[in-house]
């Protein structure tokens, strides 16, 4: 690993109860994250298998700053390759999705099969005994960069590190249980895409979904309808490394009590003009009505009532990220459930009754943090340790995230 100007980067002495401002604003930190996290030993979310059902179907996706293609092979499996021609580095596929039998780079027509093997080099032997590639050129050593692929119950992950542990071991038993709660093996159906570019460092978005403390305060809409509230039975759980997490909550009543008195914006009398917007039905085992799961490093799995989505975090630079949402349901949903999911999607996305608060909070966080990178952020709600919690007045999962981050980044 090359030195990346880390000599003057010192984590605050308090440890993981502080996060230095420079992790959100320094270009050298961003470059190091690309190398160590996104190109490193991580299972990064790529796409859903339902997006590429047939042989030859492909979809562009992102792992950190790199563009990859997920491709359905003829044997039914999924390959993930880097969208970069092995010849002169061109991003050979501009289409966002489609179906191909082979990939041809438009620059010099180098041709690859669906697994990324180089199968064609025009004029490789030259023309009339002149030119061409050297006789010892080996096509088998000049294919596309192929990533390690893991697919579980229709969700595709990839890693640049071929020695990475299995996806199941990566998640650990507890996180895998929550993953399988939503991805239970039923076939998925895509409802649509949303994507927003947020002027904030990518980690702020991951932290946001690890922070149940803000949900009861910032999200007046959620709180007023009892969709996520600190006085309702909740859990914050992590894997042993702290890098993955779930926030679990249970729908309560729309009523004022001791807890709501500290929520300045609580609105007990808020009534919908059209109650069809919030008409949730129970569909998962257990009594949790919202489970938000974050998987290191780039995935948020959303189950809020009946709205389901995967949110892929795509870092753009130290001050920007994209949040790419794929809303889905199950193939066996009836028409009423499908309509319910579409209605409840109003809570989420760039115009979401709830999510809009978050994208705006990201923006004001970034400007505040980046202006004073020398100042650390406080992460002390619920203590200074990393232990699962049975309440929401805690930032423990953010500490868990930075416990792992420090290890990977060497800070």
């Amino acid at each position, binding site marked *: 690993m090359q030195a990346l100007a880390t000599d003057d980067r010192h984590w605050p002495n308090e440890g993981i109860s502080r996060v230095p401002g420079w992790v959100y604003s320094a270009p050298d930190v961003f470059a190091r994250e690309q190398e160590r996290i996104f190109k490193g030993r991580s299972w990064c979310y790529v796409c859903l298998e339902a997006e590429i059902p047939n042989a030859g179907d492909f979809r562009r996706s992102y792992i950190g700053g790199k563009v990859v293609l997920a491709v359905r092979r003829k044997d039914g499996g999924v390959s993930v390759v880097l969208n970069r021609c092995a010849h002169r580095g061109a991003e050979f596929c501009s289409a966002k999705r489609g179906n191909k039998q082979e990939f041809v780079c438009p620059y010099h027509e180098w041709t690859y099969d669906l697994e990324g093997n180089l199968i064609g080099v025009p004029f490789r032997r030259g023309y009339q005994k002149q030119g061409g590639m050297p006789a010892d050129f080996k096509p088998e050593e000049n294919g596309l960069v192929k990533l390690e692929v893991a697919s579980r119950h229709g969700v595709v992950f990839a890693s640049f590190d071929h020695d990475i542990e299995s996806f199941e071991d990566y998640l650990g038993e507890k996180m895998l249980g929550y993953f399988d709660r939503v991805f239970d093996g039923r076939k998925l159906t895509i409802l649509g895409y949303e994507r927003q570019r947020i002027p904030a460092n990518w980690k702020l978005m991951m932290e946001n979904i690890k922070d149940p403390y803000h949900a009861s305060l910032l999200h007046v809409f959620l709180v007023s309808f009892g969709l996520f509230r600190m006085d309702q039975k909740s859990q914050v759980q992590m894997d042993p490394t702290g890098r993955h997490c779930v926030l679990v909550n249970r729908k309560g009543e729309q009523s004022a009590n001791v807890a709501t008195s500290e929520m300045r914006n609580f609105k007990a009398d808020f009534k919908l003009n059209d109650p069809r917007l919030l008409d949730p039905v129970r569909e998962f085992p257990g009594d949790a009505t919202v489970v938000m799961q974050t998987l290191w490093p780039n995935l948020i799995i959303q189950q809020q009532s009946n709205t389901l989505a995967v949110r892929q975090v795509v870092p753009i630079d130290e001050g920007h990220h994209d949040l790419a949402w794929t809303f889905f349901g199950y193939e066996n949903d009836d028409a009423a459930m499908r309509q319910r999911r579409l209605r409840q999607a109003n809570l989420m996305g760039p115009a979401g009754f709830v999510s809009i608060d978050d*994208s705006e909070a990201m923006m004001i966080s970034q400007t505040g943090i980046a202006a004073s990178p020398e100042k650390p952020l406080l992460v002390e709600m619920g203590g200074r340790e990393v232990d699962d919690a049975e309440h929401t007045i805690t930032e423990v999962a953010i500490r868990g995230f930075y416990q792992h981050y420090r290890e990977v980044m060497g800070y």
Partner: protein
Amino acid sequence: MDTAILTQPGYELRARIEALYYDYAAVLDDKEFARWPDLFTEDCFYRVTSRENIELGLPLGIILAESRGMLRDRVVALLETSMYVPRRVRHFITNIRIFDPEATGIRVRANFSVHQTLPDQETGMYLSGEYQDRLVEQGGRLLFAEKLCIHDATVVPISLVYPL
């Protein structure tokens, strides 16, 4: 609808339709949000979505409303529950094409471009795209019975705070 032949609806109908669109823009640009649902019918359909979803035939809306009540709920959220940085938007609605009136109303397509200005920042292009609408006459007024707002970019800058 794509191949419908344009009528020559006459100045009066065209003027009334243009007035509706300009009023629509003014309501949003002047932040008179409480008036926004009044430009729709009671059983209206309103959807904001990307060109990508339209082309893929996917039903998702960034905003999806199936009644004027749902539009009112959105206005309440906008004014009372959502947290956002104050900004100003400005709608430019052009290329209004009016199609043959049908029993279900008048189909109208128009281009929009929306500029956005955040505090202490330069004005920037926010989104551009197309409205595909259906207008009906009720009580002597033209109202939106359907409004489909299709934005061309896949990526929405920051948040969609105000309706398109």
